């Protein structure tokens, strides 16, 4: 074994108490980082999943209508104008099949679907409830919001005047699968439809108002035959949605809203969480560095006579330096491996302890292998850096003075 490894490992083994103490400190520090990261990552991805479960990543609709003056100024003509904002009416996306084809070909898109969305009122006996009429294109829409997986009753069948409705809406109206329902749009068109299924997405606004039917049926209810008011799409990287939306706006002039625009508060919450995670990691790194450094500094002082002897009998300064760097690195590696194991165990225990009685975790944790590898690399680097000052001090010891002081 190379001299510096032999001496470093022997010193670590010989000072069992010190080594155990600092390994405990490093592994507790690393386990806190691993545990917290797993918890925060898990919370964030489950929050994002539940948010995106009931809305598309990007929604395209017609641009807002702007008031257009009838007379232009020019040729020495000045005009005083009083401009009122234009009232926004439900409009189709211009040439939507062409836009659709274009959107589908764009990079990063996993699904796209044209839909018709309008407002209306659902009536059942004496109950009258405002609803959102959603005309969708069956399978394409399911790739964006998987209603089929969220059915609590009946099945997803929207053919021939059948509809599926939200669970809260169903209970508000007191209806279930097979019951009939009168739906009137704000355009004044009415139809009686049959409920084929009830879904629960977990988003109250959706579960309370949505009446989902076929594209064609909704087009006739809203009096926009052959039209589509929105195109909804999914992308690979959900956090790139706002950039992709900006790109679509630049290309087509359509209003493109990403889920990030619509959930700004959620996102700022997530980013606050991420930065608190970064802060905790930073302080743990500082603590671990100081811990390793202080143990090694004490060790250099304790061993200064021995270091002096090693130097006197002909040990090159660079090998003395290496002895202490190796100790720092080894403490970092072993401490962080122990800490990672500990952190994963904590995370799993926490997940199990906070699960609801059905065993479904309330706080799902997400252990990321890259995170573990990163922690181990980081702790090793930290160990080396922490060892740098003590190691240089050891290498610069004056052997004659060190021996005399013993």
């Amino acid at each position, binding site marked *: 074994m190379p001299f510096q490894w032999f001496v470093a490992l*022997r010193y670590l*083994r010989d000072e069992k108490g010190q080594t155990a103490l600092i390994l405990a400190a490093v592994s507790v520090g690393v386990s806190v980082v691993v545990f917290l990261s797993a918890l925060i990552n898990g919370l964030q991805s489950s929050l994002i999943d539940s948010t995106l479960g009931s809305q598309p990543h990007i929604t395209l609709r017609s641009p807002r209508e702007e008031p257009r003056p009838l007379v232009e100024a020019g040729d020495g003509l000045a005009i005083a104008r009083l401009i009122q904002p234009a009232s926004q009416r439900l409009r189709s996306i211009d040439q939507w099949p062409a836009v659709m084809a274009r959107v589908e070909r764009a990079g990063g898109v996993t699904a796209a679907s044209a839909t018709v969305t309008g407002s209306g009122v659902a009536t059942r006996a004496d109950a009258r409830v405002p609803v959102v009429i959603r005309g969708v294109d069956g399978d394409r829409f399911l790739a964006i919001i998987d209603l089929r997986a969220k059915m609590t009753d009946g099945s997803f069948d929207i053919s021939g005047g059948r509809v599926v409705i939200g669970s809260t809406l169903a209970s508000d109206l007191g209806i279930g699968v097979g019951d009939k329902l009168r739906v009137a749009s704000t355009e004044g068109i009415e139809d009686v439809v049959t409920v084929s299924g009830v879904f629960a997405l977990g988003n109250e606004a959706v579960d309370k108002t949505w009446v989902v039917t076929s594209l064609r049926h909704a087009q006739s209810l809203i009096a926009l035959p052959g039209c589509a008011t929105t195109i909804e799409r999914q992308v690979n990287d959900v956090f790139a949605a706002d950039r992709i939306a900006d790109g679509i706006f630049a290309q087509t002039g359509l209003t493109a809203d990403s889920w990030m625009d619509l959930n700004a508060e959620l996102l700022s919450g997530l980013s606050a969480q991420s930065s608190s995670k970064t802060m905790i990691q930073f302080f743990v790194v500082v603590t671990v560095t100081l811990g390793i450094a202080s143990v090694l500094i004490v060790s250099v002082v304790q061993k200064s006579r021995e270091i002096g002897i090693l130097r006197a*009998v002909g040990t*090159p300064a660079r090998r003395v330096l290496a002895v202490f760097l190796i100790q720092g690195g080894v403490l970092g590696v072993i401490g962080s491996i122990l800490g990672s194991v500990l952190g994963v165990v904590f995370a799993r225990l926490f997940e199990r302890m906070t699960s609801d009685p059905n065993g479904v975790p309330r706080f799902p944790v997400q252990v990321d292998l890259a995170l573990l590898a990163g922690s181990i690399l980081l702790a090793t680097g930290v160990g080396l850096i922490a060892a740098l000052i003590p190691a240089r001090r050891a290498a610069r010891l004056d052997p004659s003075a060190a*021996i005399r002081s013993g």
Partner: protein
Amino acid sequence: MAESILSVEQVVRDYGEHVRTRALAGVDLGLERGELAALIGPSGSGKSTLLNIVGLLDRPTSGRVVLAGTDTSGLNDRALTELRARTLGFVFQFHHLLPAFTAVENVMLPAWADRGAPTREMRERALAILEAVGLSDRASYKTSDLSGGQQQRVAIARALAHRPALVLADEPTGNLDTASADEVFDLMRRFNAELGTTFLVVTHDPRIADRCQRVIEIVDGRISSDQRRS
């Protein structure tokens, strides 16, 4: 004429920056191969300073030290370390073994530290020399489990394992009872006679000094007497 192992020429060593203290005031000293010399003198006379300079652990303020044919004045720290590792052996007063290591590991350390990786030859030589000092049955003991005399014998084995040209011993028997002291000194005499290793022994003990072929006395940083006996 015998081969010169050490030549100290006009060595001066001052300490302190503002108030200068002269520890060595122009020392000239030569040692030839195979000599066993005692260096005596009262406390504060400059014995340890001279030993540190000869041992390349300290540099003279002026003058030069030629060790085994190498002029050391122009060497950098790295070259001095290497020269120390290959031509010098040290025996310190308080044996100065490394307590975390076994006897045989302590004996191997100088060569191991110099070459980087251990070889079978290093180990065999270390075991052979431990046998020569009568400790072959203690080779795998931690040195903290050995008696004072045994520890000093391990220290002598360590100083001799790599066959140095010159062994420097600083009060090698200072901490031992007379029986152990005799044992340790007899070992040095034996290696001197059998291997022809040159020794420079700093000592307070007149019984040791009397048994050396040459006694050098240093007083106030100068050599005051230098006697050879046949």
